[in-house]
């Protein structure tokens, strides 16, 4: 059994065509075609693992090497020598379409699990460990950006402000976990009626939103929802989840050119929107628990949501998969269900 190969002595780039053969009794590799017959014990020779159908390298102890395209021949040589499996595992996985299909399915499952549980879980764990100084710094920067781009100073009357602040403090008194939250008033500007929670615990309510609320119960629901964001550190977790997602995408598509990065952002948007909806549901749940605990009818929150949704343009709006909040009917239904005794 002879294998055809090219021999290079490692000193110059001169090629010699040789034949390799295997002596099972002495466990030696013989090389013929160089004038003198060379032979090496198999243990002294390093044979590269198989990658696709690329040529195999047989590296000899003196720095020379043989290159052979006869992968099957070398595999059977190794099998006869009894050193078959070592180094062949990767190729066996890579060479059969069936394995590739299984690998693909497993990848999908693993990635789904990582995205659904791994990334949010990791972000939550890291958020818990981060010192509040870091959050405060991020929160200050976020507020500055919002003030610069969207929000305007509030034009609310002093009595109104005092009323809402005392409402907020009463809420905080019952939820010591939200003690670091801080209420801020702003004019909505382009954003309109809205309430936001920022990483340092700032809760921003716009004048337009306060005007929309018909009674205290409705306002309490909204404030409780925002406190839910603060207590669960959603803003920070959202930032960390984005970072983790970006790292994951970079790790998988690692060596690919930057063009694939464009492709990666669309799935990223979908995933981030999903995380955002989960957090909104969590904040709604926090608000619901508070209202029920205080004996306040949950329909008030549902009514507020209805009113807020009514102001949105029904023809516009983002598709459900990209939306940052769960669909409003779903949220309203949840609170109306809870109202039933």
């Amino acid at each position, binding site marked *: 059994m002879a294998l055809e190969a090219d021999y*290079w002595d490692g000193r110059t780039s001169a090629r010699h065509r040789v034949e390799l053969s295997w002596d099972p009794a002495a466990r030696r590799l013989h090389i013929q075609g160089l004038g003198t017959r060379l032979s090496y014990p198999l243990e002294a020779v390093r044979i590269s693992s198989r990658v696709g159908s690329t040529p195999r390298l047989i590296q000899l102890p003196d720095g020379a090497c043989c290159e052979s395209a006869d992968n099957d021949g070398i595999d059977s040589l190794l099998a006869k020598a009894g050193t078959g499996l070592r180094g062949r595992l990767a190729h066996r996985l890579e060479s059969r379409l069936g394995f590739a299909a299984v*690998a693909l399915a497993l990848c999908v499952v693993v990635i789904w699990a990582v995205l659904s549980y791994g990334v949010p879980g990791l972000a939550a764990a890291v958020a818990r460990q981060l010192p509040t100084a870091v959050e405060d710094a991020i929160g200050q920067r976020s507020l500055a950006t919002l003030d610069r781009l969207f929000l305007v100073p509030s034009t609310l009357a002093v009595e109104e402000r005092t009323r809402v602040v005392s409402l907020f403090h009463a809420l905080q008194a019952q939820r010591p976990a939200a003690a670091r939250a801080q209420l801020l008033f702003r004019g909505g500007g382009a954003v309109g009626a809205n309430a936001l929670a920022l990483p340092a615990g700032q809760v921003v309510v716009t004048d337009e939103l306060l005007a929309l609320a018909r009674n205290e119960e409705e306002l309490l629901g909204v404030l409780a929802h925002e406190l839910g964001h603060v207590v669960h550190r959603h803003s920070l977790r959202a930032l960390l989840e984005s970072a983790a997602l970006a790292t994951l995408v970079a790790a998988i598509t690692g060596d*690919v050119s930057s063009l694939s990065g464009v492709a990666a952002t669309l799935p990223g948007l979908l995933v981030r929107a999903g995380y955002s909806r989960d957090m909104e549901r969590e904040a709604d749940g926090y608000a619901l628990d508070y209202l029920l605990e205080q004996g306040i009818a949950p329909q008030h929150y549902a009514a507020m949501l209805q009113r807020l949704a009514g102001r949105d343009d029904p023809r516009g709006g983002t598709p459900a998969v990209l939306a940052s909040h769960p669909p409003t009917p779903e949220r309203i239904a949840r609170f109306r269900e809870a109202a039933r005794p």
Partner: protein
Amino acid sequence: MGPSEFKNIANVGDAQGGWPVPQDLPVQKTLDFRFQGRAGEFFKIWIVNVLLTLLTLGIYSAWAKVRTRRYFYGNTRLDDAALAYLADPLQILEGRLIALGALVVYIVVTGLAPFMEPVFILVLLGAVPWLVTRAMAFNARNTAYRNVRLGFDATYGETLLVFVGLPLLSVLTLGLAYPYFDYRRRRFLMAQHRLGTTPFTFEPGVGAFYAIYLRAALLLVLLAGLMVAVTLLAGGSMVAMLAAGSPENLPPESMIYLMAMNLGLGSLAALGMLLVRAYVQANVTNLAWARTACGGHRFGSALSTGPLFWLYLSNMLGILLSLGLLIPWARIRMARYRVECLQLHTRGSLESFVATEQSRAGATGEELGDLLDIDLAV
């Protein structure tokens, strides 16, 4: 030639007069680089790499990188001999872990003490030349053709100039120095390599680079003009509609029209940028290869803007629509095009490259140099 020149030639060399005997000219032959990789075969390697990397939380990524490189190098042939990639995955893993450690240190320290950030930036800038040289030397030393390893030598100062100084200069001159940076970078990358003892050479001359970038800038201006024209033609009616009333009063059809316009203009801009990028890449790459030689053999590259633009576009769309599954296909296509456009105009045989002392001693042994040199995943 006049009679006097005939007489001069006749008196030189050949004693009997008449025509001088031609010297033995080295055989001149143009060899094509070939790429034999196939998308189907590489997909299976790629998907197993991804899965094992995920399952091992990234540890397998070093082996994945080596296998991928071995696949691409091993399928690249010149004169019926393939390139070989010989790196040990463990060294790559070591390098990656060190890089990860440094990243963690950076995040932690700057998180706790933000004033350290400028210090880190300075240290990083100072370390870039060292990192680049180390990574290039590692990759060169672990690449072989006909069992002669490549080598890479560069001084710290030179690397600092090319990879830190010139990018800064480009930024300071608002991009005017960028063609010069590209020229110096490509010259540096080619000319600091050697095959065994034979260095690569790069013919100097920055003018041609500026010519390409100037043409690309003109192309960009042309495309911008086209977009302005389209906007004015189609958007004129838009302005009229908006003037008629506030946006809420617009009928749904014009909202859709507005969105379509935005989308259309955006796509046109993106395609235009892609075209310009393909133009620059094709021409600069061709120019750089045409200037490169090794041991008297000159390289040649024949990339074209059109096919390259189509490759960029179809790869991007393919990857997007397949949610990433067509990444291996895209990589194979790009590699195949770039390699098969490459040629070597040889003078003489390729059998006379001599390996350097170090690479002679120990394809199988461990050297102290290998232990110190780490691949920093560049």
